[in-house]
């Protein structure tokens, strides 16, 4: 069901279909090097006021997905429809207008702010680019945005180096909010923060979602963090989604062996609840040379793993409460402990 645009906003705010992104080695003389297949046919929806988490380890392509949807990088193929608009076919002017609706918050608090710009100017940038206000009104908008993210508006004249990592993340969030988006890609926004600061920023993001009706594509590698903020989770491995479902359902009974391994590897801060961990053998295959058949088969511990896994790539299909890409998802061994009390 695709929406007609501004008049009747569809519930499915973002629809991504078969997104592919390959990186080719730069330079005239590397034409023969195989491309890095960062994203290999990813499809998902994000609904209004909902958080979809994209989870995976390094090299799975999740950050590439985030950046490509916003066209900070051009996709190799596939489509992304945002509020009924085909993002990949827009010209520069229309794209700039769209940028108001879709924003991004970055991972590294230390490089996400221009060191030579006061934070007030940084937050005001979107307002100036899109001419949303002028003169004194810009300043007052900046002040109220800073307040909204929990910072003293008097700090507007200060420079990034005067702030801690957590505060810088808040400034980055204020900057994104300045253009009044309805959708924000959060690219590992708390991974570089200390534990107690993580909690502050996560709470802020949850509050903003409630108050402003925002949707998030929350990119992360930490399942415990994801559990706090995401309604639905999509697990990525080597450029593909291997499992997807509602957060609690997926964590309670994961169906794809990789999800099981990922879950079992998350350290549990409770000595009485130590699970026996599934330790994956081998290393992540290179994204330039993904295995044939199921991408996970080289490290898979499923008791039913066989030749079919080596030759035939499984497709995502509904299995009980989630969707998983595994030939034998029905009989995936359950993790030792269950997710909810």
């Amino acid at each position, binding site marked *: 069901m695709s929406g007609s645009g501004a008049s009747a906003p569809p519930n499915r705010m973002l629809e991504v279909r078969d997104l592919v992104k390959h990186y080719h080695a730069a330079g005239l003389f590397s034409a023969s090097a195989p491309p890095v297949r960062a994203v290999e046919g990813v499809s998902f929806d994000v609904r209004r006021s909902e958080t979809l988490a994209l989870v995976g380890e390094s090299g799975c392509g999740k950050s590439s997905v985030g*950046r490509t949807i*916003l066209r*900070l990088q051009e996709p190799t193929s596939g489509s992304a429809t945002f509020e009924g608009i085909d993002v990949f076919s827009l010209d520069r002017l229309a*794209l*700039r*207008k769209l*940028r*108001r609706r879709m*924003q*991004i918050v*970055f*991972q*590294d608090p230390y*490089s*996400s*702010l*221009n*060191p*030579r*710009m006061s934070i007030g100017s*940084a937050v005001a*940038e*979107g307002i100036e*680019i*899109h001419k949303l206000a002028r003169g004194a009104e810009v300043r007052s908008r900046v002040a109220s945005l800073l307040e909204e993210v929990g910072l003293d508006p008097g700090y507007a004249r200060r*420079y990034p180096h005067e702030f801690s990592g957590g505060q810088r993340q808040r400034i*980055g969030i204020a*900057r994104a909010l300045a*253009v009044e988006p309805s959708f924000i890609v959060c690219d590992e926004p708390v991974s570089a923060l200390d534990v107690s600061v993580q909690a502050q920023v996560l709470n802020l993001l949850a509050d903003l979602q409630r108050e402003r009706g925002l949707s998030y594509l929350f990119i992360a590698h930490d399942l415990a963090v994801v559990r706090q903020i995401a309604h639905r989770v999509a697990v990525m491995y080597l450029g593909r989604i291997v499992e997807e479902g509602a957060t609690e359902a997926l964590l309670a009974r994961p169906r794809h062996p990789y999800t099981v391994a990922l879950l079992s590897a998350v350290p549990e801060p409770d000595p009485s609840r130590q699970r026996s961990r599934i330790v994956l053998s081998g290393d992540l295959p290179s994204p330039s040379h993904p295995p044939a058949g199921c991408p996970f088969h080289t490290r898979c511990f499923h008791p039913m793993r066989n030749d079919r896994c080596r030759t035939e790539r499984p497709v995502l299909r509904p299995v009980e409460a989630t969707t998983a890409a595994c030939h034998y998802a029905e009989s995936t061994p359950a993790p030792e402990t269950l997710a909810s009390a």
Partner: protein
Amino acid sequence: MTAVVDTLRRAWQNPRGRAGALVLAGVALAALLGPPLLPDPVAQPDLLHGVNLPPGLGHPFGTDQLSRDVFARVVSGARVSLAVSVLAMALSITLGAAIGLIAGYWGGTTDIVLMRLVDGALAVPRLFLLLLVLAAWERVPIGVLIVLIGTTGWFATSRLVRGEVLRLREESYIRAAEALGAPRRRIIFRHLLPNTLGLLLVAATLGVGEVILLEAGLSFLGLGIHPPTPSWGGMILEAKEVLVTAPWVGVFPGLAIVITVLSADLLGDALRDSIDMWRA
């Protein structure tokens, strides 16, 4: 802005940087305020008895073979040398920054083409190029001299700026600006340029020293500043004939060159250290 101030302050705390800055400031001040207070550098007041007088009262640097006061000429020459070098260097920096920013940010074919041009230009020795042009053009006006020196000195700077831009391009705040919909122009002027100012400051300071030497050399060969306008290089040229009998005529302008260039280099080094420290 505070970052620039911090850089300057750190360079000031460095004793060598401070020395360089103070000497340069002294030379600049003398060049600005000195000439009205000093005897006319061009006048030849006393050809009978005032010729080749050694340094002493009334003539701290002595007089030359045409009885001109050497001190007044050195100070006057400072005006010319500093003016030429600062203006030429400003031209170089602007051109270098512009080309570097464009090549670095646009990338692709633009970058390749521009950088190959720069490579080609760097292959030609600057001095020979200038000699060629100046030898063919008699009595070149100062303005043209400045433009010639300026337009032959931007190549290395453009490479440096381009390198820095390539690095900066990957920073998240540039991505953030793109995500906000910032047009390229804005990214270059609001984000990239301010972050290359440090680099440019260093290149500018070192460039001043380089141009002073260049101009002095050209004037010494008779191709730069022409008499009667005093210039340090020109003064050394004229001092050749009395080198043994009245060495002060050539030594003082020579010292002026050495001290000024050295100070510019010291200051430039201190600025560079200060910027590296900030980066680290």
